[in-house]
């Protein structure tokens, strides 16, 4: 059996939640495997933490521990389909892989929400987390003028990072109004460690203008970004810049969970206090179940890891701490809700579906998301509606979720593969050893 790997517990996603889940599960002696689509563990928030000066000191220690432990890590690997219960089909850079497991823990994290506006498709307009990720993967931002816009605490973290790496951060434009941000700030006071983190960032960024009720309405430039027009109340002005790092908070990557039949509620995977989803044997943790940041992800990942391996007492003990992180998650959601004025930025010829170049005007002539997909091919490109779907939900109110395999584009040969272990499942005694290099 080639390229088939069996585990007691398989964790999908090696961000904070997935790493915590893997450790938690491994404490029971279970055989644990972890998959991630990146070449290295850490997910988004801990990307590059071992290599660069650590922004998250705890990250460095988690990642170093992860590198030393016997948990098996499959990098650059994406799950694309389910062959059978507990039997997944995945794609690695060099070919397909099958994974067989008794318990599955999904920690697929979140992505940024992108809202279209005129000029948003210009090169050098990208997400906020995106510019940070790009800088972490080797792009120099030294001396570059950057405007950071959109919504959420991520904007501050990105500003701090870019500034530290030599960027000239011109301003941070947060669409939420001051009164909501103030209320959020107060809620941070109730969580001491978060408050301390926030203070530290605020100090770092003291000289960068931070404007509330402010958002981009147009990006302009010849062949690439040269300036962004921002609106704040009644005022609009043009800000010259080299990069616009703009993301409107975060959305969970629920596609795999939905494919596997997990109930999705309010856009997130519904789980109980032990991170158990609606499908027996599948646990979910981290941003997938609610945008709550690193601390919540680590807590939930640990709970999932314990709960999936029968360590119920530990799981229950930790789950008592969830109330506080749930409050933070709720506070985030309230503070950074999108204001309706953002819908007014789009014009009829603004591209909404970037894969198929479908402008808003063509979508408006359709009666539903499904009709729009068939008539205009919006949402039918390789991103499978991950980028345009949420934008369309916000702009037009259409519900846009529907999942079919493969959940990511994949070479035909991977789908053509007759499942190797279709007829026999490895028993507990003969879990397959493998020589996968880490």
């Amino acid at each position: 059996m080639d390229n088939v790997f069996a585990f007691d517990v398989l964790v999908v996603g090696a961000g904070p939640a997935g790493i915590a889940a893997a450790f938690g599960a491994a404490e029971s002696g279970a055989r644990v495997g972890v998959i991630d689509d990146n070449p290295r563990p850490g997910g988004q928030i801990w990307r590059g933490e071992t290599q660069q000066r650590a922004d998250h000191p705890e990250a460095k220690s988690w990642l170093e521990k992860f590198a030393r432990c016997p948990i098996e890590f499959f990098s650059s690997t994406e799950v694309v389909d389910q062959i059978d219960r507990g039997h997944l089909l995945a794609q690695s850079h060099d070919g397909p892989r099958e994974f067989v497991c008794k318990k599955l823990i999904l920690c697929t994290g979140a992505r940024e929400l992108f809202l279209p506006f005129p000029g948003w498709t210009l090169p050098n307009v990208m997400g906020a987390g995106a510019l940070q990720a790009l800088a972490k993967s080797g792009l120099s931002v030294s001396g570059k003028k950057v405007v950071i816009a959109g919504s959420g605490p991520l904007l501050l973290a990105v500003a701090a990072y870019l500034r530290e790496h030599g960027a000239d951060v011109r301003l941070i434009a947060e669409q939420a109004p001051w009164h909501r941000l103030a209320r959020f700030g107060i809620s941070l006071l109730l969580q001491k460690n978060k408050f301390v983190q926030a203070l530290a960032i605020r100090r770092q960024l003291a000289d960068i203008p931070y404007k509330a009720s402010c958002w981009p309405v147009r990006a302009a430039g010849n062949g690439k970004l040269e300036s962004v027009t921002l609106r704040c109340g009644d005022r609009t002005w043009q800000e010259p810049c080299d990069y616009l790092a703009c993301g409107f908070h975060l959305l969970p990557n629920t596609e795999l969970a939905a494919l596997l039949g997990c109930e999705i509620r309010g856009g997130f995977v519904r789980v109980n206090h032990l991170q158990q989803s609606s499908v027996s044997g599948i646990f979910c943790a981290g941003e997938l179940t609610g945008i709550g940041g690193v601390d919540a992800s680590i807590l939930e990942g640990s709970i999932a890891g314990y709960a999936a391996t029968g360590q119920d007492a530990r799981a229950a003990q930790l789950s008592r701490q969830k109330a506080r992180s749930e409050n933070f998650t709720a506070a985030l959601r309230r503070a950074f809700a999108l204001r309706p004025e953002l819908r007014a930025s789009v014009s009829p010829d603004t591209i909404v579906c970037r894969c198929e170049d479908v402008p808003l005007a063509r979508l408006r002539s359709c009666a539903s998301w499904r009709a729009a997909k068939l008539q205009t091919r919006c949402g039918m490109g390789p991103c499978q509606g991950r980028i345009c779907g949420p934008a369309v939900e916000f702009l037009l109110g259409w519900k846009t979720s529907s999942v079919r395999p493969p959940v990511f584009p994949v070479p035909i040969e991977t789908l053509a593969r007759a499942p190797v272990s279709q007829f026999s499942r490895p028993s507990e005694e003969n879990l397959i050893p493998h020589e996968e290099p880490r």
Partner: protein
Amino acid sequence: MPEEISVTVNGAHLNVTSGMTVLAAILSSGAHGVRKSVKGELRGPLCAMGICFECRATVDRRPHTRTCQLLCAPGMEIRTDG
């Protein structure tokens, strides 16, 4: 010390630090964008995390390869639309 490796971007040699992604290499080579959209617009990355597919290039003769989470390897041949 991070080592240097050599790749080609649209035929031109480029020395990059090992650990750099193909996307970072493309953008460091002076290109503003990576792919041409369906209607011919030059595009750069949007999400930089493997979801938007705007970073697709032809890598080692394989078209439509996402480059934002792919590490450069010695001798890699990278071709873009932009």
